[in-house]
């Protein structure tokens, strides 16, 4: 075993022990396991939310996309900021409503607000469908880390199985408490590693930031800005906007709203969270440093850029430290995602269809579903073929479809009917599924449009169709009963 692999294995073991400690001595009810008994303060909620946001996606996906695509990577900086601005006003009323009605999940919220259990089931399905690519990308990241750190001794497919096994074991022993505690360790490590790599690599390899960017500009003019076609300014704006709207629509992010002790927590976090985004800049620097030093990675292999460069530059033990940070960035969010998906299946899909099940039984079923969810994700991970960023963008297109119904539910007089919302979400999801499976872009659908419109994120089409459907169906639905009563 290489020194790198030994350090990574020890880290995973340490995380498991922390998770075990966090759960000991607590009777884990469904509410405890999922929303931590609703007693977390600003710092803990911050860590939990940040823990979900700074994932393999940022670490390997962000650096890989900077390496492979250049300027378009900056979209990751933009959408977080806008999402936090929105969160200041959006999260407190959601939290208050959830607390009042003792809700524990996102589908509960939609089912309660629209008085429609069927809508709850649909929202749960949307959540699970979106979570799978998100989980796949964490496993993919774990696989890359373990396979690379073993210096070829462990084949990538086996590495994916090992990673999935660790995440599954972790979530089964710990629940949400384990996630929050490991999130502390993870954030400290990732902060240190990302800042170090982002500063050290450009200076060590190029002599400074300005020198590095000048060298890249010289070799690949325009690579560090948005291209005129494809991932252009229009793509950037539409993608930033879509992902900002979808940011808190993820079932696990939505669920972490419920863990807060008060609604002030969110308003405070809206100030601090944007600054946390600055870590991303260092991740980008590390990815850019690889551009001229490990040339030739294309397609899904761009996600390997950070690790390839690290192996060229550092001793195995330090590659192990980077790998350990990477493992934690996959473990914490990965466990949150699996737990959320399993709870959605048990509590929001199985339970409504099987009469009144007691909480204890639902919670036991959720735990038993954890390995099943992991297996499905392993299956898709081994199929391969997509970059980490592409996987996340697909998930985002799905969850963003919940945004219109959510925003309208915050109004005192919501003009939307549950049937309208149901129809709108179905149309939106179907559009996303159809366009992702066939890899359709707006440019393909409407070749005659000007470039600015052709490059728009295809998710916009789904969202427009969604809003049109829910408005229309709600309008018809409202008119029918009033006509009858007249």
């Amino acid at each position, binding site marked *: 075993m290489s020194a790198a692999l030994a350090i990574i294995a020890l880290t995973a073991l340490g995380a498991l022990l922390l998770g075990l400690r966090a759960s000991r001595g607590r009777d884990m009810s469904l509410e405890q396991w999922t929303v931590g008994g609703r007693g977390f303060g600003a710092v803990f909620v911050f860590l939990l939310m940040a823990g979900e946001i700074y994932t393999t996606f940022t670490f390997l996906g962000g650096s890989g996309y900077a390496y492979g695509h250049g300027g378009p990577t900056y979209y990751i900086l933009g959408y977080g900021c806008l999402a936090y601005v929105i969160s200041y006003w959006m999260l407190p009323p959601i939290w208050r409503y959830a607390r009042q009605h003792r809700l524990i999940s996102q589908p509960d919220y939609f089912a309660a607000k629209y008085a429609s259990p069927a809508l709850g089931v649909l929202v749960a399905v949307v959540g699970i469908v979106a979570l799978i690519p998100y989980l796949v990308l964490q496993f993919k990241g774990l696989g890359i880390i373990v396979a690379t750190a073993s210096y070829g001794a462990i084949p990538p497919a086996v590495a994916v199985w090992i990673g999935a096994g660790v995440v599954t074991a972790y979530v089964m022993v710990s629940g949400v408490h384990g996630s929050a505690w490991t999130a502390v360790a993870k954030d400290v490590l990732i902060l240190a590693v990302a800042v170090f790599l982002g500063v050290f690599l450009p200076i060590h390899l190029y002599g400074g930031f300005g020198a590095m960017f000048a060298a890249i500009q010289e070799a690949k003019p325009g690579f*560090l800005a948005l291209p005129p076609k494809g991932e252009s300014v229009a793509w950037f704006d539409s993608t930033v906007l879509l992902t900002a709207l979808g940011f808190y629509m993820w079932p696990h992010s939505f669920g972490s709203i419920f863990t807060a002790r008060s609604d002030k927590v969110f308003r405070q976090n809206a100030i601090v969270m944007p600054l946390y985004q600055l870590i991303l800049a260092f991740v980008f620097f590390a990815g850019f440093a690889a551009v001229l030093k490990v040339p030739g990675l294309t397609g899904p292999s761009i996600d390997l850029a950070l690790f390839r460069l690290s192996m060229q530059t550092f001793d195995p033990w330090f590659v192990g430290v980077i790998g350990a940070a990477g493992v934690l960035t996959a473990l914490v969010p990965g466990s949150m995602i699996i737990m959320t998906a399993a709870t959605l299946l048990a509590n929001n899909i199985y339970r409504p269809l099987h009469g009144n099940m007691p909480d204890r039984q639902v919670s036991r079923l959720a735990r038993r579903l954890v390995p099943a969810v992991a297996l499905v994700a392993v299956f898709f991970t081994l199929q391969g073929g997509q970059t980490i960023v592409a996987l996340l963008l697909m998930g985002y297109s799905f969850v963003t479809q919940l945004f219109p119904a959510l925003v309208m539910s915050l109004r005192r007089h919501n003009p939307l009917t549950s049937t309208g919302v149901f129809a709108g979400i179905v149309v939106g999801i179907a559009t996303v599924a159809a366009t992702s499976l066939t890899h359709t872009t707006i440019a393909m659908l409407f070749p005659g449009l000007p470039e600015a419109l052709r490059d728009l994120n295809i998710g916009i089409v789904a969202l427009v169709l969604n809003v049109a459907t829910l408005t229309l169906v709600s309008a018809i639905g409202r008119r029918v009963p009033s006509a009858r009563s007249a």
Partner: protein
Amino acid sequence: MSMIKVLAVLPFLGILVGSVFLNQVTPLVLGLPVLLAWLLLWVVLTSAIMAVIYLADPANRTPSTHTDPATHTDPDA
């Protein structure tokens, strides 16, 4: 509060509209490509703007946050 709340529009303008006009690499700003430097500036400004909004928001002046949700009315709702 109502006037200060309008500040929340600025990050949207800076990030979405500003990028249209500053989509270029050179001249490097503090050693960074122009667009990257611009977006990083907005990360910091967003935080500052949210801090101003937070301080001006009467909802954050109530000392107790454990109040009954029914009596805790949000002026922005």
